[in-house]
């Protein structure tokens, strides 16, 4: 418990350092947000007025100081582009990104493990070959292509599901499949490899010697043991699903964090970019922490003090 508290307080300097790096690097990026947001029709005076309004005419250390002071209180300022509180903008997008990433990971685990186990059950045969081909195709297919294909078939031709946008469960299905398929394919291959390795273990021979049927051996005994590396991999990939969904979010017009980040970078919307990058830093730090703690539970040797 004490060590957990210590680990959590250890995050604070990491986050502060991250704010500094993010803040300075953003200001090094060429492009003036005031000019971009005022548009090409604006006069020099209009742009200067907007720059002053955004507080960008102050010295950079002063900007950083006031940013940090307010960030500590959970206030990340206003979006330069929409003048809405950054916290509001990011909160709405973060929850839809989490929803999409969770759904995609869920689909990936179910489909990946099922496909992997199925190929093992029919190893050496045609089904095995077909399953492995599907897995390779799933890894190789770019998500935007798969996304457009899914839209064309299920939304335009069949009319079963909406083409995009957020709002209801039916909006979630296609983007989750498009986003999770590459991960599903990876998991299928890992599951297959792990199960084949486990098949050589003594306890499998024992189970068979007891007279258990092959399906029970495979699905009950082998799969359960083989799942450990699969779960680890799924956990690691979840982070990249959260951060790397820009393409899928764009194709499906999903109002997620990745798209907001891309749009904000295009307009140099500093406060929004800062907040999103901090969310990502925090997520990765927390995931690392969880992984470490999980190892501690699995392997007593890792437990400290």
């Amino acid at each position: 418990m004490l060590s957990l508290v210590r680990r959590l307080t250890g995050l604070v300097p990491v986050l502060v350092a991250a704010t500094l790096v993010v803040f300075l690097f953003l200001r090094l990026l060429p492009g003036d947000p005031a000019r971009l947001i005022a548009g090409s029709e604006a006069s020099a005076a209009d742009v200067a007025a907007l720059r002053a309004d955004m507080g960008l005419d102050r010295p950079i250390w002063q900007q950083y100081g006031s940013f940090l002071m307010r960030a500590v209180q959970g206030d990340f300022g206003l979006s330069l582009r929409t003048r809405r509180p950054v916290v509001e903008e990011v909160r709405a997008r973060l929850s839809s990104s989490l929803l999409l990433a969770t759904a995609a990971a869920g689909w990936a685990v179910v489909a990946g493990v099922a496909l992997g186990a199925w190929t093992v059950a029919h190893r050496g045969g045609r089904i095995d070959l077909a399953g492995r081909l599907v897995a390779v195709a799933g890894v190789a297919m770019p998500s935007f292509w798969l996304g457009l294909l899914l839209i064309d078939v299920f939304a335009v031709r069949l009319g079963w599901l909406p083409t995009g946008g957020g709002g209801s469960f039916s909006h979630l299905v296609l983007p989750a499949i498009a986003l999770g398929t590459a991960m599903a394919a990876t998991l299928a291959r890992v599951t297959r490899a792990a199960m084949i390795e486990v098949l050589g273990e003594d306890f499998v021979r024992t189970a068979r010697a007891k007279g258990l049927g092959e399906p029970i051996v495979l699905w009950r005994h082998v799969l359960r043991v083989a799942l450990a590396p699969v779960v680890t991999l799924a956990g690691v990939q979840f982070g990249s699903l959260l951060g790397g969904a820009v393409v899928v979010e764009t194709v499906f017009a999903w109002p997620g964090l990745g798209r907001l980040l891309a749009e904000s970078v295009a307009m140099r919307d500093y406060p929004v970019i800062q907040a999103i990058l901090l969310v990502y830093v925090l997520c990765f730090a927390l995931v690392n922490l969880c992984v470490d703690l999980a190892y501690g539970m699995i392997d007593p040797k890792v437990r400290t003090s």
Partner: protein
Amino acid sequence: MRSLVAMIVAGLVLLWQPPVRAAGNVVIGVADTLTGFDVHTISDTLSQSAARMMLQGLFGFDSDLKPVPVLAESYEANSEATEFTFYLRKGVRFHDGTPFNAEAVRINFERLVNPENRLSRASLLSMARSFTVVDEFTLRISLKTPFAALINTLAHPGTMIHSPAALARHGRDVMRHPVGTGPFRFAEWQADRLKVVRNEHYWKPGLPKVDSITLRSVPENGSRLAMLLAGEAHAIAPLPPEQVSVAEANPAIDVVRRPSIVTWYMAMNTRKAPFNDVRVRQALNLAVDKQAYRQVVWNGFAAPLTAPVPPGLPMHAEQQPWPYDPERARALLGQAGYPNGFSVELMGAGNTLARRAMQFLQQQLAAVGVQVRITPLDAGMIAERIWRVADPAAATIELFYAGWSASTGDPDWQLRPLFFGPSAPPALNNVAYYSNPAVDAAIMAGLSTIDPQRRAEAYRVAQEIIWTEAPWVFLGVETLLAGKAKSVAGLHYLPDRSLSLDEVELK
């Protein structure tokens, strides 16, 4: 395992919500994301179009971008274009129930021009000296300098009128609490959509004809078309040129083709060698096949640009076209001292259409010995290279591919930002750093009288000189494309790319 699968399937079936389209609720797919509705500060065409459903100005535009009275009924002006009196519409109320009157207009305009408010559309009315309430429905505007384009400026979305009560209550937050006099009231604005609903007390009889309008941001071109094909959207705008044939193949869909005032050009930095020599600039105009440009870049969905002011704007003075004549181009380059051509950088945006255009220009100019290096950049980098430069002599721009539309619908807003000497960056958009005292004088003369004939004459002179001196390669005028279901009527795509949705109806 089997029961688990069955449960999941059952769950999916129960949660099923097939796409629904309720009657009278119009959905329109757009490419960009809305940025807000404080018209005195927003600058993107989409947000301005969205705001126009809710807010109105003294004037507005008809579907050809001609100014028409909206909240003003009529006006008078002195002949020097320095004093304007407006007679306002009576009996109009804002969505919050407060009355519209001259005082409301004064409050809005004074808010817009007050430097303390730091509103980025302030320069629209920066020539105003005072706004005087004459009586409840009469307002007088006095100007510091003559400004004949005032009526067009008052039709621009940047001068639309917020409810003064909303301004007092929300301050800068009118950005997301727009309250106006328009046919639709604000309902909700989320990350990817805006919904507006019918204003039951709208002053114009018979409007609006639908219960609500939703604008949905769908950035990916293919997905936006899919939305229309699947019947989830009643209309989409824009429609990329390469999708026209796909959309047309569907019997339920109409492709809207709209001649526009969106002018595409390649500016040449007239202060720098080799473009400080007019013969070089003329040679480049001769070296580019404009018909091929329209075909290759726009799939034919573009019209010839026949003067610095495009044909869709008033006071356009048609010029003799620059023919495609690579032989003469080479000869001119030789006379200018570049018999073997030269090497130069062409900068432009990074999107597909701009890249295609720049590659086309590169090939065309290579044929006359001009070696072009293409530099596609994002908007931020372009802004840095153009508007960070305070001293024209220090500008590194050589060739710049870009487009412009005069959103006031007046030729002044074409000529002054783009060809007026003092409009060189960082002031405005004269990226060619073009400066000719005769042109500057003609542009000022065009602003200093309200007599349309004298204005047209001044602008004719300016256009003639600019055309001959060729600070640009004059490329073409985009044809706007949108897709809509056949059941939709009353949707207007204006020549400056804005959407007018007041009269939308479903049949």
